[in-house]
């Protein structure tokens, strides 16, 4: 399992392969330097001699200077290696985060309807961070350990091949022990990352309905729910920690055992005449050199497990199926006339419960089509299908006689301008938000759009004006809608879609911006969803949706005369 994670992570590590290699070499050089220093200190002590007054001061000084040089260089190298490694690890993390976000931005919209954003945040922040910690510090330690162990082992082999047999028993033993534990531990670390993600998902969701929690005074109940998840996440965290607590010490234990065996068997060998005392004591000395680095490395095992589990979660996100790519030969879209046809379209988010049933309608190029109908009748769904967020289960939608699927998806979306029911602003300045769909727009154009959307006066009243950074509070939904309209006015799309664009805007303001809307509609096909029938009255064609199908179509006058659903809806406006 770990193998596969490493392989899957490979494509993020490979670009830095040379860097890692170079750092490894530097690390080796640093270690050698620090090994050379004791040699010099030995010589210095020799120069001191044993007689009072007989100290060879020049010799002492020379060797001390040498030591100082070695140490300084070794420290310098060590700083260089760890700071470079840190940068490399950060570069890998940055690449990982970026890749994860890039994939996130390609995912179909319904992914976000079923995956809490808190969990996504957890993957891209916490999980990547965990991987980063391993790359930036643990690797260094692991590298040093491997060097020391390998070097010492070589010396052991040279000193006494027979005594080295002890390690033939203990090394596989600790490997087996580790493997066995890892197998058990891995799912626990996976659970731990998942539970933490779930906790974050919960916290993030609840931050979004703080006002309700406060108003209904359910802080205590909410805290109880948080407690449940917090306890579960903490429990999972502890379970993984508890299970892995044995990992380091057990490897260490085997190491200590082998040390014991080495000394006992060594003693036996010596007594049997198979080994000199000098060799035995060197052998033992070198085996002792093992234990330090092995202890350090063993203690890292748990952290490696944690990052493997974290890396898996990031990689799983990267493996999510993105929105289907444009097929070869997808039509680039430069201009649309805007002749839209829905032909026997059936669609349901859950195919068993279609929202649209056998829906057929034609919106001629350049016309103003209005869609009305009770809530839940499928009006917004029509927009989602046009934008290719979803594909109908049966039937076709064509624009200018060409099926939607034949166009390049982004090209198509670029030709559609829209104001959605769910207004969305990002945490940038007001100017940036207005120019969101048209980044090349000048400040004058932005202001002009804001004026046309009747939001200029509000913006001017803010201390920083157009450079005010938007936050959630202090701006009403109606104002957000006006900003979205200003944003829409700046685009040069061919089809305009307004889904409840002014539902929270007062009638008077709506009347004032109608002029701007009129201009926006000029020469474009316009698709308006609205409840306010005053908004709808002037449409060339009104589609009345009911029960998933087009109940009626016609102009305001025709529909009133028909006395159907539309006439009823219209009358409801004046009932008290």
């Amino acid at each position, binding site marked *: 399992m770990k193998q596969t994670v490493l392989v899957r992570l490979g494509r993020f590590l490979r670009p830095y392969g040379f860097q890692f290699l170079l750092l490894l070499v530097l690390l080796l050089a640093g270690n050698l330097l620090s090994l050379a220093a004791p040699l010099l200190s030995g010589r210095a002590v020799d120069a001191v001699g044993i007689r009072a007054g007989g100290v060879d001061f020049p010799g002492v000084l020379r060797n001390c200077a040498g030591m100082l040089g070695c140490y300084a260089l070794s420290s310098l190298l060590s*700083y260089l290696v760890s700071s470079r490694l840190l940068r490399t690890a950060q570069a890998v993390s940055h690449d990982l985060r970026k890749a994860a976000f890039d994939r996130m931005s390609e995912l179909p919209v319904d992914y976000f309807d079923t995956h809490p954003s808190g969990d996504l945040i957890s993957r891209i922040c916490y999980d990547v961070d965990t991987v980063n910690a391993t790359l930036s510090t643990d690797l260094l330690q692991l590298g040093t350990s491997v060097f020391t162990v390998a070097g010492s082992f070589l010396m052991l082999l040279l000193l006494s091949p027979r005594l080295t047999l002890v390690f033939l028993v203990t090394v596989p033993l600790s490997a087996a022990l580790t493997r066995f534990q890892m197998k058990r531990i891995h799912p626990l670390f996976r659970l731990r990352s998942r539970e933490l993600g779930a906790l*974050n998902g919960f916290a993030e969701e609840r931050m979004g309905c703080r006002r309700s929690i406060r108003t209904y005074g359910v802080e205590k109940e909410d805290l109880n729910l948080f407690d449940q998840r917090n306890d579960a996440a903490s429990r999972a965290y502890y379970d993984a920690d508890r299970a892995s*607590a044995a990992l380091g*010490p057990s490897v260490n*234990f085997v190491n200590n055992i082998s040390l014991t065996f080495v000394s006992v068997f060594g003693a036996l060998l010596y007594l049997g005449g198979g080994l000199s005392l000098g060799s035995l004591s060197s052998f033992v000395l070198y085996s002792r050199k093992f234990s330090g680095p092995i202890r350090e490395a063993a203690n890292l095992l748990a952290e490696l497990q944690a990052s493997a589990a974290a890396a898996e979660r990031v990689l799983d996100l990267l493996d999510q199926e993105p929105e289907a790519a444009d097929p070869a030969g997808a039509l680039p879209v430069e201009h649309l006339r805007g002749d839209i046809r829905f032909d026997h379209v059936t669609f349901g988010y859950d195919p068993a419960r279609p929202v649209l049933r056998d829906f057929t309608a034609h919106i001629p190029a350049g016309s103003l089509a209005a869609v009305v109908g009770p809530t839940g009748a499928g009006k917004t769904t029509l927009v989602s299908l046009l934008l290719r967020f979803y594909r109908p289960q049966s039937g076709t939608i064509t624009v200018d006689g060409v099926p939607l699927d034949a166009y390049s998806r982004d090209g198509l979306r670029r030709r559609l301008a829209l104001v959605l029911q769910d207004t969305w602003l990002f945490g940038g300045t007001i100017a940036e938000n207005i120019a969101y769909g048209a980044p090349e727009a000048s400040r004058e154009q932005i202001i002009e759009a804001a004026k046309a959307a009747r939001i200029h006066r509000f913006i001017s009243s803010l201390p920083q004006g157009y450079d005010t950074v938007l936050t959630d509070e202090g701006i009403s939904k109606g104002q957000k809608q006006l900003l979205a309209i200003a944003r829409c006015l700046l685009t040069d799309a061919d089809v305009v879609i307004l889904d409840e664009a002014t539902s929270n805007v007062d009638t008077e303001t709506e009347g004032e911006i109608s002029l701007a809307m009129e201009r926006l509609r000029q020469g474009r096909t316009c698709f308006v969803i609205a*409840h306010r029938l005053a908004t709808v009255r002037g449409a060339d064609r009104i589609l009345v949706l009911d029960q998933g199908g087009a109940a009626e179509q016609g102009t305001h006058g025709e529909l009133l005369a028909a006395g159907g659903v539309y006439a009823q809806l219209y009358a409801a406006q004046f009932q008290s």
Partner: protein
Amino acid sequence: MKTILGYLRPHAPRVAVGVTVKFTAAVLELLLPLLLAHIIDDCVPARDLPGVFRAGGLMLLMAFGAAFCNITANRMAAWVSMDMTRQLRRDLYQRTLLLSQAQLDRFSVSSIVSRLTNDTYNVHQMFDKIQRGGIRAPMLVLGGLALTFFQAPPLALVQLGVCSATFFAIWLVTRRGIPRYTRAQEAVDTVVRILQENAAGVRVVKALVCQGRERDRFAAASRASKEAEEAAGCVMAAANPLSDFLLNLGLVLVVLAGAALVDRGRMASGQIVAFLSYFTLIQTATLGLAKLFVKYSKGVASARRIEEVLLAPEDQQVRVPGEAPGPELGMENASFSYLGVEKDLDGASFSLNKGETLGVLGPTGSGKTTLISLLLRLYDADSGVVWVGSRDVSALSREDLRGRFGVVFQNEALLNDSVYENISFLRGLSREDVTAAARTAQAWAFIEALPEGLDARLDIRGANLSGGQRQRLLIARALAARPGILILDSADSALDYRTAAALHAAVRRDCPGVTLVVISERVASLRDADRILVLEDGVIAAQGTHGELLETCGRYRRMAELQMGGLT
């Protein structure tokens, strides 16, 4: 840091035991090589075979004991840091629940989320690593120092000086590291914010084909985070080599000083050699400390960010009520400004009797939502009096406000939970009450049509419902506990006229005696109100009944005519 350390207090006995156990393990492990030396130096030359086995057996026992102690200590440390973090995270969440809206605006939601997740994680790491790795190293340093004092006091003084210099250097580095880690955590806030925005705004981003720009924006935030982490990391990376160098410098000084002492005949050169070996022991011990200091400075930076929230003062005190200002609810000359520049509500005065209906109408941004934010005491008025239930709201505690209101907010998100839970909203209401509320809210028909009815599960933010359906669930939530005061802030904006009319009729029928505040862009939804406020730029421009306003208020008349085609 003091507050966070307080979380350690309840665990003090456990920590003490854990530390002792860890200490025992370290002693056992340090004794192992001594036994080893005993076998090689004493038993083997003396050909003492039983002695070899005795010592070997003892070594096995000690190895076993060390492993056992280490596992136990690690588990205890893991438990303590887990439980502390659990409690800390809980308290942090609880505190964020009690933050005032103004405080929340100031901290920003994304920063709170990242403090709840990333920062608590860093603190966890700090406590865990210090408990596990913070015993052995200081023990070796102190033990080594003590031993050298016995060996050669003058040389030990050199060593003491070097050690102090080392710790001073580490302290300096750490002090520089902490603010850099604070900055790094702030960079994480931005990353979190962009992730939140993109998850919530995915439809708009895709519709405007702005994925590329969002990627750039994210890449920039991620790069900023990377650079901030690098800046902090590079400072901390100096700790290890610096202390290493200083200690080695000490080694050189010891040799030099030793040479001088030997020359004057005050010391044997063998002592220098023995001294050097202890010195190496100390040196290896300090190396492990550097990693701890990284965790420590990161942990401290995060701990401070958490404390900032935990220690945020209660900024909405419950005050002693003044004179009873009026009947059920109202305002007297109330003003409020979000940003402190332009008044969002300016000198509002009105009052409403119990069971009456207040309508609020006005252009976008005229202060309608601000009006109810003050009634709900989400914010405190800058001046003037706001009262509810004949009491000044600033004299009402959260408990007093609890259950009094049912509110439909604009932009409120639904939960990724069942329909029932979305209406009951943690209040444990009966299914009958929830059903009744859903009926009044005109939501029952579509709920009934769902395969699992009330138990049907909603997607995140209720994405599997239409805008109007979501709105009606929020209305049902507001009605479900039969509140005395019902506030509908543009609650019918996504409803067709027929449904809206049915809703208003049902509320009147099913909620007798309720005091109703209706904000709407639709004159039809307000015309039956006992009092209608017409807001303009934060000022109540006119108030009266539908009939009165038609006579006196030009704006109102224009609105009515626009919407109702002159039918009045």
